[in-house]
């Protein structure tokens, strides 16, 4: 589903990704771990097509298509979803209105008919239960005045509505207390399916106690230096990242 080969990316002339290789198949959940500044969020942003990154080498194939040649909105319509680490506030635009516009843009792209208000609200009701999100939150302006936990929950709620094929979760666990983490993880687990792939970007092993990944990768200094199963995450928690020091840049 996702094939990343030798990906190099820089921001304002500074090289962040230095040759990332990653292959994700449908149904798999991959965790990407690494210390601050290792390039985890950059990788998530490059997949979603955020402006400001220069791709200096490498390729990204998504469902066999050249992902890097696609606009961000086209990627989204093709089923790429990014759960933001810092979701943005949109004053005056209600969450439901925003989501309806998003869902109908995606449905139109898929050749499906647009959902009318009644069907859409029924869908909202159903998915709101999944992440235990308050319905008043759904009617408020997008993320405005939401607590940190509410914002993260809202991201998972949006993911449930938009039904993506590839979901990238950028530090969805950061800033969550243990109860909120459980709710968010339960929501994510319910969205696991044989057709959907997920990439979890995280700092801590904690999230992986609740969402058990198929593969764990360690990103260090812009490269994936080690991959393994969930035991690797436990080892990282116990030993830190130092023992995996990146090979000297050549």
């Amino acid at each position, binding site marked *: 589903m996702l094939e990343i080969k030798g990906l190099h990316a820089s921001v304002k002339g500074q090289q962040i990704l230095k040759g990332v290789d990653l292959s994700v198949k449908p149904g798999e959940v991959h965790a990407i771990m690494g210390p601050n500044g290792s390039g985890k969020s950059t990788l998530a942003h490059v997949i979603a097509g955020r402006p400001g990154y220069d791709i200096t080498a490498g390729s990204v194939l998504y469902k066999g298509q050249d992902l890097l040649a696609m606009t961000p*909105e086209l990627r989204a319509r093709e089923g790429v*979803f990014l759960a933001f680490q810092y979701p*943005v506030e*949109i004053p*005056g635009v209600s969450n439901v209105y925003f989501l309806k516009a*998003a*869902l109908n843009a995606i449905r139109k792209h898929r050749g499906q008919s647009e959902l009318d208000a009644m069907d859409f609200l029924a869908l909202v009701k159903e998915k709101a239960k999944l992440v235990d999100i308050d319905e008043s939150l759904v009617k408020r302006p997008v993320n405005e005045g939401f607590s940190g936990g509410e914002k993260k929950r809202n991201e998972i709620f949006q993911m449930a509505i938009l039904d993506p094929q590839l979901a990238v979760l950028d530090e969805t666990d950061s800033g969550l207390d243990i109860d909120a983490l459980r709710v968010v993880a339960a929501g994510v687990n319910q969205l696991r399916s044989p057709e959907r792939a997920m990439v979890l970007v995280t700092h801590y092993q904690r999230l992986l106690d609740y969402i058990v990944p198929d593969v764990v990768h360690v990103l260090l200094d812009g490269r994936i230096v080690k991959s393994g199963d969930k035991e690797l995450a436990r080892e990282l928690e116990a030993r830190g990242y130092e023992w995996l020091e990146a090979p000297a840049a050549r």
Partner: protein
Amino acid sequence: MRIGKAADNSRNYSQCDSLLLGDQCGAHTFPYIEVLNSTAQMEHEASTSKIGEDQLFYFQQRGVSPEDAVSMIVNGFCKEVFKELPMEFAVEAQKLLGVSLEGSVG
């Protein structure tokens, strides 16, 4: 804003919010206040914000085109005022906005 001599204990609140589209523009606000009665209460507030790249990207990441995103952000910004207008003006204003926004995002 002018408060006349006989307007005892009058109150006024004026708010002036600007939303900038693109990086080639600016906003200047000149509130003019003339008060002839010292019992009056006057308040003035002004703010300037702009459509951020972050906001646009958030819409795009959810599948919404930049053109539709700008229109939704601007309409959200103006909603507070529009909902105070009589129906026919509100409809007119919304149409005007739609027209003037065409081609503003490249």
